[in-house]
């Protein structure tokens, strides 16, 4: 998640105070991890320095956040380009799980049992996320869906790898595996 671009995107809706930006960021994108105020102001400062936002005059009152920020044309161009750019599909070819399975086979350890435990962990997480889908607000449900689809893809990989462990063992431990 790019915090600067997300804040910039929120600013494109309407000029806002740092406090409002933080509140909206936490509501829609934080998912349990709040954005520190310090990071909000530091980010806004950098965006202002780079000409992507403009800070208005400080308004009278208590507290640090008395400036209303607005997006500049340069900022709008940046948000448009970011939104239009597809997210890297991230094929995860070197996952931790792949490394564990391969190492387990190399070391003669029970790779199948490791995969079973991983499958159980995935299923338990999917059960938790399904509860979120059932009982949560739409935003939470859609985020849970995203995670569920990824976990489902992992599970397919786990099933496929479980079925092909002997083949993988032959590749990664050629000295141990008798030739066919």
């Amino acid at each position, binding site marked *: 998640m790019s915090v600067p671009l997300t804040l910039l995107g929120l600013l494109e809706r309407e000029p806002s105070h740092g406090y409002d930006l933080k509140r909206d960021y936490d509501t829609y994108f934080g998912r349990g991890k709040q954005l520190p105020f310090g990071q909000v102001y530091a980010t806004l400062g950098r965006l202002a320095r780079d000409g992507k936002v403009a800070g208005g005059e400080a308004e009278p009152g208590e507290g640090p956040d008395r400036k209303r920020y607005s997006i500049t044309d340069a900022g709008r161009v940046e948000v448009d380009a970011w939104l239009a750019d597809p997210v890297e599909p991230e094929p995860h070819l070197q996952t931790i799980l792949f490394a564990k399975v391969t190492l387990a086979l190399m070391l003669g350890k029970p790779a199948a049992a490791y995969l079973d435990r991983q499958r159980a962990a995935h299923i*338990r997480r999917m*059960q938790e996320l399904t509860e979120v889908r059932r009982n949560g607000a739409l935003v939470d449900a859609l985020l849970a869906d995203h995670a569920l689809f990824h*976990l489902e893809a992992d599970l397919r990989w786990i099933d496929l790898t479980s079925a092909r462990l002997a083949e993988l063992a032959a590749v990664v431990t050629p000295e141990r595996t008798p030739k066919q």
Partner: protein
Amino acid sequence: MSSAVVTRAHLVEARDVVKSFGQTTALRGASVAARPGEILAVMGPSGSGKSTLLHCMAGIFTPDRGEVWFDGQRLDALDEAERTRLRRTDFGFVFQFGQLVPELTAADNVALPLLLNRTRRRIAYKTADTWLDRLGIPDKAANRTGELSGGEAQRVAVARALALAPKVIFADEPTGSLDSLTGEKVMDLLTGLAREAGTTVVLVTHDARVAAYADRVVMVRDGLVSGDLGVIGEQVSAAKAVK
């Protein structure tokens, strides 16, 4: 612990079930049990034996060896007439295809099992209307099920299963023919309403997203139940391998 005690803790239980079809052995000593009110998912790849296990637990197939217990009695030892009676009164079924009569209306399909159980016609149709309403399709009561969408038809099937107020619902790939959004809606309704009613559900699926609706998930591989994968609440070991 006596077997009777175990069986009462578990509403439905398969013990060391072996089942072959000709030269093909589908189950090689599968054991699994569901507690009253539990939603149990049985996962497994195609050909693993999971559907055969469900059919044995529902008394549709008779095991070659092993035992099936339901509510304190040996289901596999009952004669066909007794098993048929149980299937009509205590079991509900939701399958991927085919359990509805396409020429009959949604209300007819839901009322039919009640009428077969000699429920009075007016009450049967009132019950059908109530369940079609709870499944969100009250406006489809007069439609022939053959004319409904896949999702609507599966809702009718769920209504029909629940309308009997069964002790257990056996569901075999209940969302297999549906797109993912429709399938998830059907699973929401099936598991949500079953939980409300305290009905046990034994659910067979190859789909982890569907299995994740269950309280407990077990895996069938090569005709054996290989263990609990996900458990919400008290863990009950269902794993049992045979030599």
